[in-house]
């Protein structure tokens, strides 16, 4: 009997622990998140898709802008997964590189702009929760995450563009 009681208490305890975690997440993160996402969503609506499209197309010519500002605009304004539709502004051989570049950014952006990918917040938030628990501020990490994210998307864009180019050439030669 004692064993069963012990077991039952353990069973409930496991979910009490989980419940506390859930409560912490809901009260600690959601209020700020709701206000932030609302504000950014409104901003995106005010600016309007067409103005973004027009500006973004100007960034496609130079490879540095093509794999930094261009995917940044795509992810910020269209969010995951509609951001990949920006590939239509690029010639065929650059599309895989753009996809690689944009998809690499859908997590680094969430540190500062969670509206861009709300379904996958915990890549960032899981680790951020540990930092918060230590009493450290998240700002420096979020900013560096974003900046390194931009460098990484540039590198991914360039490397994938080179690889795509080679594969297309060897394909045509064969």
């Amino acid at each position, binding site marked *: 009997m004692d064993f069963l009681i012990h077991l039952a208490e353990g069973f409930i305890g496991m979910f*009490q622990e989980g419940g506390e975690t859930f409560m912490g997440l809901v009260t600690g993160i959601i209020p700020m998140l709701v206000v932030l996402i609302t504000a950014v969503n409104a901003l995106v609506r005010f600016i309007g898709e067409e103005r973004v499209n027009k500006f973004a197309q100007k960034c496609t010519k130079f490879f540095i802008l093509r794999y930094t500002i261009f995917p940044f605009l795509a992810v910020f304004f269209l969010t995951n997964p509609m951001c990949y539709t920006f590939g239509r502004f690029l010639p065929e051989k650059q599309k895989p590189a753009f996809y690689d570049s944009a998809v*690499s950014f859908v997590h680094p952006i969430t540190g500062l702009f969670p509206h861009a990918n709300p379904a996958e917040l915990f890549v960032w938030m899981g680790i951020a929760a540990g*930092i918060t628990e230590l009493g450290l501020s998240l700002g420096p990490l979020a900013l560096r995450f974003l900046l390194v994210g931009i460098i990484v998307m540039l590198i991914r864009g360039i490397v994938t563009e080179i690889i795509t180019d080679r594969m297309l050439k060897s394909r045509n030669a064969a």
Partner: protein
Amino acid sequence: MSEYKSVKVVKGPSGWGGPLIITPSDQQKYIISVTGGGVHKVAQEIADRTGGIAIDGFEKSVPKEEIAAAVINCGGTARSGVYPRMGVKTINTYSNSPSGPLLKFINEGNFVSGVDVRNIEDLEAEEIAASSIEESQPSNLMDKKIAQQLKEEAKAKVRENNSEKGKKKNPIMKLIEVLGNKVGNVVSVFFQSGRDTIETVIKNILPFMAFVSALMGIITFTGIGDFIANLVAPMATSLIGMLIISLVAAIPIVSPLLAPGAVIAQVVGVLIGVEIANGNIPPQMALPALFAINPQVGTDFVPVGLTLGEAEPETIEVGVPAVLFSRLITGPIAVIIAYFASFGLYS
């Protein structure tokens, strides 16, 4: 044939619903503009193109049976629901999605939002012909002539009314109307953004929080946590360890298996967060860890992502392996960059 034409009204860039096909008839000849400040340009455009009559719904009321379409600028829930409920095709110039107490009456067959003048398209000639033949058969020629006369009269009357109104209108009233419309627009944008946000929180964020919480409860309570800590923590404390993690996750056969929904990256992120909180992983390692656990991002989604970018099938064929192989190189590079970028963080 018939003096009425059809137009197709499609939703705007951030709108919802539609496309609606608007075809006035002798019974339903009015395009009612319930927007305030006279006849809205969208209503006028539809009327001009279809041969219907645009009227200002605030100045004049017509029975709902005679309305071909209603143009509204409703940022809230009232007008957006009332007209669909009455069975009137509703065109909203604001980009609302259905909500509010009348939500159940609004559907893609009777409501379209975010509409501007350029979202109105003339329908193909054959389609018009096909639809108008059916309609015009029962009415004989006499009726039609009379109807046409009546319509012209009505049109002239409305025009007269409008021009009179235009002259009479007090500049202060005009200012209030313009101001009201602008403020209404701003409020509606914020309101819709809030609505979208709450929907996202309920549909995407809360469910994942529930999942994470249940997982955390089990992990911390059963002691699996200690086991994982012994396994993951040593890997995540050194550059070499993280490079190994990123290399494994970037293997072209492995990465598409790890990627879906970023679920694995999210779970591992939570685990590393716990270990950081427990002091087993130094906080500055958080930055390289964020990249070490995620070199597989999006590798399952390459064909879909490329299709969204309107890529040719040949591009997709080449693009998938190109992205997968690229990750083998760029995955570890990202970790190294993040490692050096973490110097001076939290110290």
